[in-house]
């Protein structure tokens, strides 16, 4: 089932009655989510990602725009009739019901031609429990389960009625780091097995990048970029996207282009054929640095952090907009930070320049 969002907009009236400021939570969102894919809605809090998810679920009504499931316009359809599954951030399991009763709950609501007999319901519940591997927990109460187990129950409850669309709201945020890694693989596996079009919301870029078929990066209600995770990472549309994706985050410098040369401070790091002279903001991915004794970029070394396979060199640079410059180089390199400077060359495909005012990407060709 593909999902089509057409000019989707949500405006919340101002909370403060005196000022008439409205909050535009989602602004003119257009996107066609392909059938059977896993989509990550990504952005900092307040970017409108959860609002978008709630509009797809029908729990919130769009101010304007339309939503289609396949060819059906579901914009006016109420939540209970949309045939969706939704997993809440804190799971929202019914605390007084057992795991089995929780999973059965949606099935017991089916009416008319969808009504199921008791055994069929039980079969379906077992099937869903098996899919998320909680068959042995069916008679427990939610309070007797760990966070990860509760999460699985919530997913089973969302899947049991075979929804057309599965929605997950920050599904991993309440889990500890190890469980998070494990559970996100699990979600990926379940989604692959069921083939249900799935949309999930997260503020964690690593999470989104690692399991999504496509990610949507949002900021203050506006879609910044849509694409496959690697494409978005390698080819950010603007400074916000570049900064939001990647750990450690991208290094940002103020720079300028003069006679085709890109200067960071006094260091001319690169030469372009097609960029007119201007002030720019420069982003260099940590893995974009090459240790080079004759390299153009001179940084003052501060510290070396050994990360196993790689080594992270922490340094400072006068033009850096962050307090520290962080590079990641292979541990095979001989690293000497006893000198005044550590010198780098940069990989051209790991460096991005942005318009200083609009922060939009300036595409360049290396001379």
């Amino acid at each position: 089932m593909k999902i089509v969002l057409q000019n989707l907009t949500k405006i919340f009236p101002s909370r403060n009655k005196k000022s008439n400021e409205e909050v535009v939570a989602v602004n003119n969102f257009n996107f066609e989510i392909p059938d059977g894919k896993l989509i990550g809605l990504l952005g900092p809090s307040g970017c409108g990602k959860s609002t978008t998810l709630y509009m797809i679920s029908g729990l919130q009504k769009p101010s304007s725009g339309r939503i289609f499931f396949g060819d059906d316009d579901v914009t006016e359809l109420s939540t209970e009739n949309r045939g969706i599954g939704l997993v809440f951030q804190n799971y929202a399991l019914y605390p007084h019901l057992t795991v089995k009763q929780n999973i059965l709950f949606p099935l017991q609501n089916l009416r008319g031609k969808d009504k199921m007999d008791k055994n069929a319901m039980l079969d379906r519940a077992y099937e869903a429990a098996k899919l998320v591997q909680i068959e042995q927990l069916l008679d427990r109460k939610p309070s007797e389960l760990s966070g990860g187990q509760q999460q699985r129950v919530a997913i089973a409850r969302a899947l049991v009625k075979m929804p057309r669309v599965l929605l997950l709201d920050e599904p991993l945020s309440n889990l500890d780091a190890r469980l998070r890694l494990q559970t996100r693989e699990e979600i990926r596996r379940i989604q692959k097995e069921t083939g249900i079009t799935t949309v999930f919301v997260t503020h964690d870029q690593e999470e989104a990048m690692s399991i999504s078929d496509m990610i949507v990066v949002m900021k203050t209600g506006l879609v910044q970029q849509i694409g496959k995770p690697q494409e978005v990472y390698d080819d950010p549309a603007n400074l916000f996207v570049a900064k939001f994706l990647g750990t450690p985050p991208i290094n940002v410098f103020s720079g300028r282009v003069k006679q085709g040369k890109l200067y960071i401070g006094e260091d001319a790091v690169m030469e372009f054929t097609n960029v007119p002279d201007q002030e720019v903001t420069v982003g260099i991915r940590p893995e974009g640095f090459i240790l080079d004794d004759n390299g153009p970029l001179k940084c003052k070394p501060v510290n070396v952090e050994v990360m196993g396979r790689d080594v992270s060199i922490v340094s400072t640079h006068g033009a850096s907009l962050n307090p520290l410059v962080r590079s990641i180089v292979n541990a095979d390199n001989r690293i000497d930070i006893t000198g005044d400077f550590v010198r780098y060359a940069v990989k051209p495909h790991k460096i991005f320049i942005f318009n200083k005012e609009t922060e939009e990407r300036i595409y360049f060709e290396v001379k």
Partner: protein
Amino acid sequence: MLLSNYVDAFTTASLGVLFKNTMIVGIVSTLLSLVITILTAFAFARLEFKGKELLFAALLATMMIPGELFTITNFATVTNLGWRNTYTVLIVPFLVSVFYIYLLRQNFLQIPNELYLAAKVDGTSDLKYLWKVMVPLSLPTLISITILKMMGAWNSYIWPRLVANDEAHRLITNGLRNAFTDTTGDVNYPVQMAAVALVSAPLFLVFVFLRKYIMSGVSRSGIKG
């Protein structure tokens, strides 16, 4: 024989009829009151409608007015309705308790909103959600309300005395006070005390077994049941 005092008490005050009347009034009014309280508290806790805050504030404000102020007009109202000396008059006027609505609404508000949203996603109607999720989760509060309401019926005196003082509908407290005050000089205290013991026993039993619910209900109230 000690027991004879109890037998005397039972017959003098016709405690059998009084017990029966009190149970009928207590059970029916508790059940109806629970239904109304649950519906109203749900509307205030979970549904959106215009003027919700204002209406709720107005309800709370009525709690400050002494009950006697209502009694005067209600006495006239039930008399004009021809309800005097019926069970109806003992049940209907007190079905709505603003305090119980407030208590239950607070409890409903503590239930995370996500459960309601989840139920919506699961295709649950409002009424079914109320019955299947909210009510089971608020059971302790509902039990507190039930006990306080039953105790209220058991202990109520002024209103029943005013509007249903005939033999057929008299309630226990009223009957107890009346049965032994006819004589001015020589009161048969042993028999009277036996009657007091008979009337108090059920309350003691309820208290011993359901102490937790009574105390938690009362500590939030300030009103005697």
